[in-house]
């Protein structure tokens, strides 16, 4: 389960519209709950370093994540997930998304942006223990 603030939810969807027809990407800050769920209180848009193929690939500069983590620590927040968009493509994780996912226990949020407008947003938790058994599991999103 991913609980996300209305502001963070709206922001990540809007980010996808802003970067259309390219993929947007960003981080979600919040906290890990004792029941295994995540609560995202803020979304932090990031740059997409894949300027060679931004319409179907994204990459976040680790240096940007370090800055976001540092800011989060000062506010008692942690990185609990990431988001990106799929321009004119379903909000469903791809084999590339899974191959490049390494933050176990975090939420990966994908928004389909159709003809410039955000449509469906879905969330997936990266489960497993290592590169051999990792998988995405659908998780409900609760916007509050």
């Amino acid at each position, binding site marked *: 389960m991913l609980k996300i603030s209305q502001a963070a939810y709206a922001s990540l969807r809007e980010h996808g519209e802003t970067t259309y027809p390219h*993929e947007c990407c960003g981080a979600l800050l919040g906290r890990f709950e004792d029941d295994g769920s995540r609560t995202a209180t803020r979304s932090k848009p990031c740059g997409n370093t894949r300027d060679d193929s931004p319409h179907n690939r994204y990459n976040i500069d680790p240096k940007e994540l370090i800055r976001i983590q540092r800011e989060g620590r000062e506010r008692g927040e942690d990185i609990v997930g990431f988001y990106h968009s799929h321009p004119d493509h379903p909000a469903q994780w791809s084999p590339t998304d899974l191959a490049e996912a390494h933050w176990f226990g*975090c939420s*990966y949020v994908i928004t389909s942006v159709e003809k410039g407008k955000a449509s469906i947003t879905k969330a997936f938790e990266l489960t497993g223990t290592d590169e051999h058994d990792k998988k995405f599991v659908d998780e409900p999103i609760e916007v509050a």
Partner: protein
Amino acid sequence: MKKIDPLDHPCESSRDGLASVVDMPKIQIPSPLRQYAGKQASVTVPAKTVGDALAGLVAQHPDLRHHLYTDDGKLRAFVNVYVNDEDMRYLEKEATALNDGDTISIVPSIAGGR
């Protein structure tokens, strides 16, 4: 949590002759790896280089080794290691020297696409 006895680890001394934990490099542990590091978000390790720091980290927390390194001992390609704000790959890699108060960040890659 395993205690670090400064007298067991050679490193620069503070003026009273004992290493200060406050000055030791701090390694920031990303959330997916904290369960293998005693649930700690950061670990201090006496070290003079990045390689020493990572070696000290996995010595303290052996379960981290598999997640950071391949079977032939190389850092996994998706594991980014930064010293403060610099990617160690563009410094001296594992031989990068550390100064008092330096922060090492382990940052798994974030990438993907449809």
